């Protein structure tokens, strides 16, 4: 009975590749600085015209503080703000969330997710932009084809505000 179940599961995993989505890993580097604030991070998909076609995640300070609302600083994510942010009514369910600490953060977007399901077949770019209060800004891009006819993987290495960013479609 037990071996049979294993075979059945293996069979399910062998379904066409298009059924899987995007596996993204974003590293927020640990900083040795006197004043550290977690970065604002935007992760989105651009089409070949640099048009934002899907916002995957935006991490920013969602609480109000004595210094005002955290949304005030969203335009510092310059590219994201231009391509998408300024057109949005924030917060956005399933996209926006609080800032994250240093470390690796995984993001799995299922192929059935409406943001991926609506994408026409073609060339796209995963864009990750990070900006830190009293720090710098960095933007990384990883191109990919959608849907994945064969397993794909991409990697981009940041040098300041981002560490390693990986993308895999398998």
């Amino acid at each position: 009975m037990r071996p049979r179940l294993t075979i059945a599961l293996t069979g399910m995993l062998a379904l066409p590749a298009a059924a899987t989505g995007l596996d993204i890993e974003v590293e927020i580097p640990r900083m040795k600085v006197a004043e550290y604030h977690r970065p604002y991070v935007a992760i989105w998909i651009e089409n070949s015209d640099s048009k934002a076609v899907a916002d995957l995640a935006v991490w920013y300070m969602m609480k109000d503080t004595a210094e005002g609302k955290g949304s005030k600083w969203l335009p510092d994510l310059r590219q994201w703000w231009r391509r998408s942010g300024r057109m949005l009514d924030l917060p956005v369910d399933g996209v926006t969330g609080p800032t994250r600490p240093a470390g690796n953060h995984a993001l799995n977007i299922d192929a059935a997710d409406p943001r991926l399901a609506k994408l026409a077949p073609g060339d796209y770019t995963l864009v990750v932009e990070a900006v830190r209060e009293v720090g710098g800004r960095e933007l990384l891009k990883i191109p990919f084809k959608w849907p994945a006819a064969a397993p794909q993987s991409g990697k981009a290495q940041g040098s300041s505000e981002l560490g390693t960013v990986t993308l895999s479609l398998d």
Partner: protein
Amino acid sequence: MNIKRTLAIALAIAAAAPTIASAHKAWLRPSQTVVAGEAPWITVDAAVSNDLFYFNHVPLRLDNLVITAPDGTALEAANSATGKYRSVFDLQLVQEGTYRIGVVNNYVTARYTQNGESKRWRGTAATFASEVPKDAKDVEVNESISRVETFVTRGTPSEKAFAPEGTGLEFVPVTHPNDLYAGEAATFRFQVDGKPAAGLEIEIVRGGTRYRNAQDEIKATTDANGEFQVTWPEAGMYWLETSLSDDKVSVPEARGRRLGYVATLEVLPQ
């Protein structure tokens, strides 16, 4: 004697004309042009200087400050003050969209002699007939319309605030003035009294002139549609200026009309 008299007239004209008519640069400089958040505030400096954007000459007066909200309505500035070198005011961006902020001076100036005494007057076309005395002699009348503007957007850029009045020299953005990026080209249009202003010479200077040896000005000329294109060499706050003289006067006695336009535009890095 002749030279002295000519000089005196030139000085008198310079003194009578609004500040923008001098060689100095008038400008408004907003604290930021691309803004987010709920009802955020911006603050704006207003000054006249040679260097961009430093306060070292005279303040730009806010008497004729005109703020147009994204829905086209007029707004009042808050916390206005005029100091030795600059004026300053705050503005809360309650509505989402693009705001046009401008100092619009629309004047008629006159020089005349009355009972052998030389006099100067400044007012509007409406007050000219009643305020300049009937027995005035050697009356010299000039008209001037100048606009010093800047644009600020909260959230999604909008275009309603750009609606031109159809008088004087006006800036009609083709590329949105809060969507300017280094390395990209932008197209703008000028119109005079609502019609395309062809052959207009445009001068554009990036701020921070104190820290470089040259103005590095960008020159452009408008085409038959009143349009010109500029490719921004780098990010920064830019000062754009153009002017024009014509004889389309509203007071029959006026010799001519001077039209001026200045915009402060922020170009962001990619």
